[in-house]
């Protein structure tokens, strides 16, 4: 499983700032730092805690090409000091300031330390991984990774979640089984002609014990009382019956039932069970009483949800989301828009972690090794058969260049999920809102 980058991480991760640096003998380091702290205002405004204040020459980026000096040359050891951001004070003023203090002032040994202030570029914001810190240290200035992340979930929360999901306690269902159940939910409604084989599983974790509390497949194509099957107009079907909306609806209904043993009255919503699989989990009163919406629940999805469903997860206050197939043209969770190696990867909404919304949750893309193997097998079968009769391609969205805008009748969707058909005038699965 790969944790998704947040919008902020994508947007701000590479912002830089100009700062002054100066080389000075180690024994004067503290003295000069004091001078800077006392005389240059506004240093608290910008947080540069992720950068070393003093750096030994040998830790500076290779492109500085500093001469290698040996102690035997009789020169005392020196350090490089990160003075302050360049926008706080002019180069001339900082120069004048340092000239007033040892070792740069006109005292006995000042001749040995010509004052040379250098303006350099450094990363403005803290790195979000040790790898990034190492990369930045090579490129800009020695950088710390402090195991914090101002733009997303705290790294320790992410690793705790990952270990809970990947190494489940005894009796808890394993992640691949959860993903398989989501797939089965989608297949079950698809078989009935109700949906497009996308599925959703909702799990509650109480004291390290997990409980599956809702399972739903997509039902956008379930014939409505009003509808005749030959309604052949291009349609997205009943948009409100995407798998996520149905699963979230089931949770609300269950809560009502557990709290008051009354049924919700609005029969217009398709969030009652439609398949035996959905029924099996819906009928169990296995959720914690007095819960609120889907607060901190865990959501397992076959596909990255659309904007509607992504925002429904925000409104429902979910805790963790894991989806298998990225939907690069319709998905609402991915914040990344382009990758160097694969090109476009998403719309860039990143709804799982937007600071302007009132709720954030962790989100992963599921990348099981078994899954990769299975795909390889499928690919092999495809090549052997010489045609594309099976197998979605939505995990390779970058190959798709069609511009279908809507999906057509139920048969067009349920009959095929292949982009191959896009060439025949049928829409591709990658343009579908999941």
């Amino acid at each position, binding site marked *: 499983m790969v944790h998704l980058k947040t919008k902020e991480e994508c*947007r701000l991760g590479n912002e830089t700032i100009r700062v002054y640096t100066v080389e000075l003998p180690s024994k004067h380091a503290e003295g000069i730092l004091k001078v800077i702290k006392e005389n240059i205002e506004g240093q608290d405004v910008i947080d540069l805690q992720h950068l070393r204040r003093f750096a030994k020459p040998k830790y500076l980026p290779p492109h500085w090409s500093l001469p290698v000096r040996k102690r035997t040359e009789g020169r005392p050891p020196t350090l490089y000091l990160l003075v302050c951001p360049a926008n706080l004070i002019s180069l001339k003023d900082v120069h004048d300031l340092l000239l007033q203090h040892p070792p740069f002032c006109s005292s006995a040994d000042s001749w040995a330390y010509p004052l040379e202030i250098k303006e350099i570029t450094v990363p403005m914001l803290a790195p979000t991984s040790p790898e990034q810190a190492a990369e930045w240290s090579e490129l800009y200035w020695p950088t710390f990774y402090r195991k914090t992340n101002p733009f997303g979930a705290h790294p320790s929360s992410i690793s705790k979640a990952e270990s809970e999901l990947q190494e489940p306690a005894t009796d808890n269902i394993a992640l691949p089984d959860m993903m398989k159940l989501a797939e089965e939910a989608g297949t079950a409604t698809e078989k009935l002609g109700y949906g497009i084989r996308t599925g959703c599983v909702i799990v509650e974790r109480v004291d390290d014990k997990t409980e599956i509390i809702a399972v739903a497949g997509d039902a956008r194509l379930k014939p409505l009382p009003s509808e005749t099957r030959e309604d052949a107009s291009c349609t*997205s079907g009943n*948009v409100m019956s995407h798998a996520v909306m149905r699963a979230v609806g089931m949770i609300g209904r269950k809560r009502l039932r557990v709290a008051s043993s009354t049924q919700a009255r609005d029969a217009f919503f398709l969030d009652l069970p439609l398949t035996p699989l959905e029924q099996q989990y819906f009928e169990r009163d296995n959720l914690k009483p007095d819960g609120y919406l889907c607060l901190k629940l865990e959501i397992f999805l076959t596909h990255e949800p659309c904007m*509607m469903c992504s925002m429904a997860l925000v409104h429902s206050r979910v805790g963790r989301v894991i989806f298998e197939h990225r939907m690069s043209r319709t998905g609402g969770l991915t914040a990344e*828009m382009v990758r160097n190696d694969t090109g476009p990867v998403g719309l860039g909404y990143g709804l799982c972690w937007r600071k302007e919304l009132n709720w954030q949750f962790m989100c992963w893309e599921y990348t099981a090794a078994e899954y990769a193997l299975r795909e390889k097998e499928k690919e092999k079968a495809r090549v052997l058969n010489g045609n594309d009769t099976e197998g979605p391609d939505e995990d390779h969205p970058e190959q798709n260049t069609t511009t279908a805008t809507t999906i057509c009748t139920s048969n067009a969707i349920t009959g095929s999920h292949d982009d191959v058909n896009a060439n025949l005038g049928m829409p591709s699965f990658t343009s579908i*809102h999941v």
Partner: protein
Amino acid sequence: MVFGPIPNREYHEGFMRKAIEMAELALSSDETPVGCVFVHDGEVIGRGINGTNASLNGTRHAEFVALAEIMAKHPPSILKDTDLYVTVEPCIMCASALRQFGIRAVYFGCLNDRFGGCGGVMTVHSDPGVDPPYPVYGGLFREEAIMLLRKFYVQENNKAPDPKPKKNRELKTEILPITTPNVATPGGGTPSLELNKPILEKAAVAAKAQITQMK
């Protein structure tokens, strides 16, 4: 322009009046007062009030309640010739649903600067995407829409068990003028809240924050 001139304004005000009536109904049933009607060929084909509290479902917004009613009687394709009148700008979720359904146009009262999907926070109605965008027109009975929200927050506050400072229990009647809402940001970019913070419905939000704080 979300708050641009609306051609044939009186006609649209007639339907927004019905949406306001729905919002009043929500207020009297202790739901956040948001109401809407869907209009096809000059006729109301669906109406809804926010129902998140009664359903214990955070997605049961007025638009969804109305859409579910419409789906029971009409094929989804009817929405391509249907307009929505809603007292508060649709949220990001509803804005996306409406676009997937192919709604013809959306008329709303006040901006939703916490969750708005049609200019308040994001611009889901017009961002690049696989479905055609739809036009939005804001500002119909805006003051009334805001006052309904404020009444709700004051009502909720007065129901809270412990006594509150008097100022939070009084209804503020001053309404700030319209400022420029967020402009479109293709690709789901962040409409820069810091630079261009929508301050329209702030009073209501502030009131709500006070209530939450006190609970």
